[in-house]
Every structure is written in C-alpha cells, then in structure tokens.
C-alpha cells in the first residue's frame, strides 16, 4: 500500500528476521505498514492531511481569520472556501474555525502526549526493572488515575488553577501517565528474562544500557500502537471540557466550544453544527483505526515469536 | 474376530481436500480411499502434517468452510458428503463419538463434569434430567472414575489429565456410538497413563462392538491393538492392510522407516534411536513424484518421475504405494506394545 510507504523508514531487515536482531533498527523494522485495509489507508491519509492543513493554515489562500466576522450571521453552508460549513452566530467562518481549532487541539494533545509518554515510560521502566517499592507506587498511581473519569480529574484541577492553554496541556498530560507506565512496566517485565537481555547483562551491560538500548527498542511497537487511541481519548476529553465551558478560553476556536456554541441556535440553523462534528468524529475515528491497525501488527508479530 | 455378518460402517472413496491459502491452494488430502467394517478397529498412522486430523475433520464435517472437498464418504450406507449440514451434524453427532488429543482443553472448564458427559445424549435423545444424571454416573463408572456419583458435580480442573481423558471417553460413549474416533487421544498423556487409556478403549470396543479409529503418530499405539492400519504421508495413503501383515512385511519404505524408528525396550540400551531425516513435503502443489522420495534412502530417478499407486503388497488387501518395496522384513514390534 502506498500510504504505508511514507512511514517505512528502514528497509534493512526482512520482517521475519527482525526479532532475532536487536536494538533500535529492529524495533523500527517491526513497525512496517503493509496490508492496510481501505479504511485504514483512508485514516492514515486523513491524519496526514489534517496535520498538514493545521500546520499550514496560515498559508491556505483565501482562508479568513477565524476570530473576525467575515459574512452574515449564521449563514448556511455554500460552495465557497470560507462558507463551506457556513458562518457562526458572530459571522465567523466555521471552516476557518474548524481548521484553526484543529491546530490548537493537535498542539495541545501532542504536547500532552509527549509529557505523558516521557513520564510514563520513565516510571514504567523503573517499576518493571526494579520492581518492589517502585512498582507498588506506579501501580497505585495508575489505578488511581483509571478510577476517575478524565473529565473529573481535569475539572478538579481547573477548579483551583483556572483555564488556560498551559493548564489544559499540563492536566491532559497527567491523564495518561499511568497508562503508559503500566504498558511499559508490563513490557519490561516480559522482556526482562529473554535471552538477549540475559546475554547483554552477561556481557556486563549496566541497568541504563540494558533498559534503553536493549529493552526499550522492543517496546516501541507496543507503545506506538497505544498512542493513537490515547490521543483520540485526549481529543475527546479536551472537546468535552470546551463543550462544558472549562476548556481553552474564548475566543480561541475549539471544536467542543463550537459545538456548544451552536446548540443555542440549533433549532433554527441545524446545518451549522456539522462542520466541527465532522472534524472531531473523523479525527477520532482515524486515530482509533490507525491504533487498531498498529495493534494488529504487534499481535501478529507476537504470535510469530 | 466376531463371526457375525459384517457390513461396511465407513466407506471413503477418492477423497480430496484442498484449502485456499494466501500462498496458493494447499493439497491437504489426495485421493484417500478407506473402508472400516462394523465392529473393526483401524489405526491411521503418520507424522504430524500427514493429513490424519484433516481426514477426521473431513469425515466429521468439521473442515474449514473454505475447504474444497471432492470424493465420497458413506457412513453406514448413507452418503454424508454433500448432505445438508444440519442433517449430517445430527446423523454423525448421534452415532459417532470423538475423543481429542488434549483432554484439558477439550473439556469445558466452566461446566460440571457430569452434564458434559451426558450432554450429547440430552441433545440428541432428549433424555430427562434424572436419566441424564444416571447415565453420566454409569458412564463415569464404566471408564473407571472412582466414586463416580460424587464426581458428577465436580469441575474438570479437579481431575488429573488421565482422568480428564477418561471423562472425555465417557462423554463420547453417551450416545452409544457405532464408531469411536480417538484422535491422538493418548498423545498428551504420561506413558503409563497412555497404556491405561489404550487398554480401556480396547475393552470398551470389545464390549460394545463399535467400530473404532485410532489416529496416532505413534506406531506403538496401533501395534497389536487394531485390526487394520492405514499409513499416511503428505496427505496421501501410502500403505494400508491388516496390522499384522503391515508390521511383518511393510510394503513401503516409509512404513519400514517408521517401524524402525519405534524405540524398543528389548534393544540394547546404547543403541541409537533411529529417526527419519528430512521434512514432510510441501503441500502447495499437487506433485507427480513419490512424496517420500526426497527423504527415502532407496529412492531412484523413477521415484521422482512417477507417482507410485496403491498396489497389492500381500494377502488380505494389504496394499502399498512404493516403487521399491523393502525386501528385508522389519523387526517385529513386541517391545513397543
């Protein structure tokens, strides 16, 4: 499949040999993208397109500023660029707001994902490698976080800190630390007794080297597979908070906020709500689908071991 | 054996089974013809991958839906190939019992043992709950489960592997089958338990007069325990005949090597175990050569050019498909019993 090729950064190893080889190259070689279904290919393409549009929104010719009125109030959709999804109650282009909302959401969610991955992988490696106290601590944290609805955690934090892009990013970043830690921990524990780790240790490799150079590369496929669905979860959480009025402060465009804003006029202008809905549903669908695809690949690999 | 007039219980004619796969069509069964008379026992022998289990699945109608099957299978006079699925299921389910290899996985861990034993009778005969309980307890007693009445309400995980296999046998007997198929039924068990289970099957077969098929990769299971034997290799029947005749004078190089590979208790302790070098053939293409030729010590150019057909190799319907049948009689298998 052609869309897969864009991700295929190494051609060094045939897939069935990859397990025997060690290190980062092998880990990346295990993430090939062949045999995606049409829906999976669509999802990959959609996400690439979304990222490109969001990144280069400023350079799209003719796209108006999302925060300034551009036409009539609540104008129905028409076949012009800015009017494609219609205009909102203040006459702003909904398409433009959807695109700039995508940029805002993607930046926040990506930053939050980086935060949770870095913290989660670090904690998970400590817990899986040293076990004992570190493991108990990480388990307690992960259990606690999963016992509370994400929206409630953030609401509790926001009730004292107030809302801003920074607090939103940081609080979203806390949510998935436990999940990444738990997955990393499980992976480290299962890899720990494999021959290649024992061999590395017999050769005198220290804890840091074994963890970073030997074990972590083998966890890359598993960890990569959970990133898209977790990001989808963050997008939903962020959208929910914006919908409830505790998200990014106005007038910055956000999908959840746009949906909430259009509900006041929904009985008169039902068409105006579909732009942001389409954006969030497609994005979440694409992320989940890519996640399933990656998970299936990991599954196949695991069974071949 | 029994002097009663015999008639054919299972009759397989020119059975082929092909399975589409991503790499191409797999020829899993090729031109299999076999018969089993009522009340007789047949051993089907071969390495793993020889097609034994596929043959059983084809008989029971359990092969993959994608499989293409041709040829004819008749059970007690009824042609079951091409029969509507539900009818075939009910016919065979009510008259054939199957015991599988792994008793731990073959029992439902979530159900009590007794109801599992009587289940087939409950479904196919609609017996009442009390009858089912009595039947299950009597069957458990019959297969040698001590204190059967109290075992009725216990769960599979409370039993040992050998006991679980006895329970499986009991559940296969619930319908008083005309044919019992033991598909590698003793493979997963300890050697001493294996012998107990084989003895049990032999006794039950003699008592009930049912036909029995023993599928195994172990010749020792078949030797002296079955009336007839069929040797499979690469999805083909390479030799068939009365067990005694096949063991005394094997008509196929492969059979001879198999017999030689059975460890014997009488052999000197330092004697090396014989194995057959090489791998079973790739089943991708319908080959024209003898499938065993690449691994055969006696192979000649003829073997890789033409496929040998089953031809008489002795009395009583002993047949083999080999261009160069072994001349030296193989050693007898007393030790392997």
């Amino acid at each position: 499949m052609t869309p897969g090729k864009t991700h295929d950064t190494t051609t060094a190893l045939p897939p069935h040999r990859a397990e025997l080889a060690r290190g980062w190259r092998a880990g990346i070689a295990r993430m090939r993208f062949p045999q995606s279904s049409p829906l999976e290919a669509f999802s990959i393409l959609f996400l690439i397109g979304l990222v490109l549009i969001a990144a280069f929104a400023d350079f799209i010719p003719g796209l108006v500023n999302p925060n300034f009125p551009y036409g009539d109030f609540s104008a129905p959709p028409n076949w012009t660029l800015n009017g494609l999804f219609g205009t909102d109650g203040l006459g702003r282009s909904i398409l433009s707001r959807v695109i700039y909302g995508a940029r805002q959401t993607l930046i926040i969610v990506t930053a939050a994902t980086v935060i949770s991955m870095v913290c989660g992988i670090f904690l998970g490696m400590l817990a899986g490698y040293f076990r004992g106290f570190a493991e108990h601590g990480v388990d307690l944290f992960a259990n606690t976080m999963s016992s509370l609805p994400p929206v409630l955690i953030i609401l509790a934090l926001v009730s004292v800190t107030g809302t801003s892009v920074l607090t939103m990013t940081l609080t979203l970043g806390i949510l998935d630390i436990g999940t990444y830690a738990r997955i990393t921990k499980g992976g480290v524990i299962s890899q720990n007794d494999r021959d290649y780790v024992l061999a590395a240790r017999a050769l005198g490799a220290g804890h840091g080297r074994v963890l970073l150079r030997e074990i972590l590369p083998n966890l890359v496929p598993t960890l990569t597979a959970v990133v898209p669905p977790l990001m989808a979860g963050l997008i939903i959480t962020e959208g929910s908070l914006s919908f409830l009025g505790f998200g990014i402060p106005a007038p910055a465009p956000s999908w959840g906020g746009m949906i909430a804003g259009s509900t006041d006029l929904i009985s008169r202008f039902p068409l105006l709500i579909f732009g942001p809905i389409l954006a969030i549903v497609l994005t979440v669908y694409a992320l989940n689908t890519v996640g399933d695809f990656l998970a299936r690949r990991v599954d196949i690999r695991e069974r071949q071991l | 054996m029994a002097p009663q007039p015999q008639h054919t219980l299972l009759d397989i004619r020119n059975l082929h089974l092909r399975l589409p796969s991503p790499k191409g069509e797999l020829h899993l069964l090729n031109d299999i013809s076999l018969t089993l008379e009522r009340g007789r026992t047949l051993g089907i022998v071969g390495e793993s991958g020889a097609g034994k289990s596929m043959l059983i699945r084809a008989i029971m109608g359990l092969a993959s839906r994608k499989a293409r099957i041709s040829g004819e299978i008749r059970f007690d006079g009824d042609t079951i190939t091409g029969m509507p699925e539900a009818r075939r299921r009910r016919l065979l389910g009510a008259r054939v019992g199957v015991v599988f290899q792994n008793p731990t996985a073959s029992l439902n861990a979530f159900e009590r043992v007794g109801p599992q034993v009587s289940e087939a009778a409950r479904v196919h005969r609609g017996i009442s709950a009390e009858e089912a309980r009595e039947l299950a307890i009597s069957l458990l007693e019959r297969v040698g489960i001590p204190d059967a009445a109290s075992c009725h309400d216990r769960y599979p995980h409370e039993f040992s592997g050998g006991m679980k296999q006895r329970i499986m046998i009991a559940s296969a007997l619930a319908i008083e089958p005309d044919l019992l198929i033991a598909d590698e039924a003793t493979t997963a068990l300890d050697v001493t338990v294996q012998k107990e289970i084989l003895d049990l099957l032999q006794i039950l077969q003699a008592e009930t007069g049912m036909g029995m098929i023993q599928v195994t990769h172990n010749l020792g299971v078949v030797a002296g325990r079955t009336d007839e034997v069929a040797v499979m290799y690469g999805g083909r029947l390479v030799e068939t005949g009365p067990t005694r005749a096949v063991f005394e004078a094997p008509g196929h190089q492969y059979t001879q090597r198999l017999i030689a590979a059975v460890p014997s208790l009488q052999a000197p302790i330092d004697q090396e175990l014989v194995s057959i070098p090489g791998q079973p053939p790739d089943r991708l293409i319908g080959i024209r050569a003898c499938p065993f030729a690449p691994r055969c010590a006696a192979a000649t150019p003829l073997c890789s050019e033409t496929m040998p057909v089953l031809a008489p190799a002795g009395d009583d319907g002993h047949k083999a498909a080999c261009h160069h049948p072994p001349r030296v009689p193989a050693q007898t298998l007393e030790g392997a019993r």
Partner: protein
Amino acid sequence: MHSSATPYLKALGTRLLAGIPVLLLVTFAATALSDLMAGSAAQAILGEFATPEQIAQLNAAYGYDLPAWQRYLRWLGNALQGDLGHTLYSQQPVAQVLFDRALVTFEIAFAAMIFSLAVAVPLALAMAARAGGRLDSALRFAASAMLAVPTFVSVVVLSLLFSIFLRWLPATGWVPFFDDPLGNLRHLILPVMCLSVHQVAYFFRVARNEFLATLQQDFIASARAKGFSTRYILWHHVLRPSLPQVLTVMGLSMTYLLGGSFIVESFFAIPGIGWTVLSAVQDHDLAMVQAILVLTVLIFVLVFALVDLGYALIDPRVEVK
C-alpha cells in the same frame, strides 16, 4: 452448590480494604488542591472584593490557612463520622446533597449499562457465529464509527433529532421516579441513548472478539464433533467462558458512564453528580468537589470488588479467598 455466602462477603471485604490506598491518595490530593490556587485560597474563592472578616470566617470554617496535612486530618476525622462538610454558599450538608444527586446519576448510568448490554451482547453472539460475513463487517464498521462519537456530539445530534425535529421526547429537565414514573421514563430515554451510543459499540466489539476467541478453543471443537448446532454451542458453551472479559469491560465502563454523565447532565439540565460538580467547580466549592472525588473512587473500588467476585462465580477455577 456453594453452601454459604460468607466466603464471598469476606472476599468482598478484603477487596474493599485493598481500595483504601487509592481512596487515601485521591482524598489527600483533593485536600491539597487548594494550595495550587494563586495567592491565598480563601481570597481566590471569595474574589478580590472580599473583606478580611469574610476571609477569616472562611478560613475558620474550611481551614484554608492550615498546611495541607492538617487540613486533611481534620477532613478525614470528620469524614469518618459521616460529615463531608457543608456546601460553600447554601451551607447544606455535602453528604445529603450528594446522596440525592447521586441517585439520579446512578439511575441513568445503570439504565445505560443495562440497555447497552441488552443490545450489544446478543448481537455480538450472533455475529461471532458468522464472523467475516457482510452483516458482521457492517456492524463492526458501525461500532468503530460509533466509538468515534464523543458524548458531547451524541447529545447534540440525538436531541436535535428526537426533541427538536421529531418532538418525541422532552429536550431538558428531570422528573424523579417516585413523583411520576412515566415522566421519569420519558426524561430518561434521551440521556440513556446518548450514553449508549459509545457503550453499545464498546460492548459489542469486546464481546464479539471474546466470543470469537472462545469459538477457537478445543472444547468447542469437541462440542461440534458431538453434532450440536451453532446456536446451541453459542448459548451453552461460548457465552459463559466469555463472560469474565465482558464483566471486566462492564467495570471499566463505569468510569466512562460517570464521565459521560457530566456532559449529559449539563446538556439536559439533570440534577445529578455531573451537574453538581460543574457548578461546584464554578463556585470553587472545594468541599463538594472533594466529596464527589471520594464518591467516584468508592464506586470504582466497589465495582471492581464486585467484578472480582463475579469472576469467582462464573469461573469454577477462580478461588474465593
């Protein structure tokens, strides 16, 4: 048959005790929250026009001038006596207010869970039998599409459809069950449907895959060899061994349902926990926020203790300790 329920009650107790560390962590974090406030907590809560007397009063009542651990011990001591404090403005007992609101949320969440299971599990069972077929593929796609619909989208779309276009169901509001059972039902339908969009798809997916995995097991092959019909095998041999996984997912979905209730309750103006927490956050009513966190964790711990017991009831190999 198992003669007595006592071992189960004991096991339930042990598992509830195991939830105590989580509970302590959450409640302590909730107490410490106010330290994150910019400047003095009392000042932040009351706003910049608060008089020093008002601030002193608030500090006396809630202890915002004390270190977190002192405040926590005080809260814990009161909580153990059933006193979760008073709401910030109306000065009602938090426990009392929360109890009334929780009943509403539980009714909705419980109804959504039952409805989703009732739709998804039989459907999953039917599809597992014809896995790979057209209908199965279509439903799998529908499920993954439904999983991509956030609750805040389904509330908007479903209320647009059912209360604005079709006018079948009331758009907002709530009638307690004991005041008017029928009215309660009418107000229940739309919230339950909104929560079920995600849940039906989730249960369907998990259950279908689990049924399919069970169908691959050896004991299913021996059941097939006995000539049982597929339908019989599904109900008698596949369902029960697959239930532990379904039970796990039911436990996990409690968290989702509570989170979803925030959206649903705020949108339909239903006086449940979600609605309460939103106004508490707006008012900086930290006692209420803390109490809701406690309640949520308690539910989670209780649900998973029950799920654990469920395993023991379903799977004879699982021992009750």
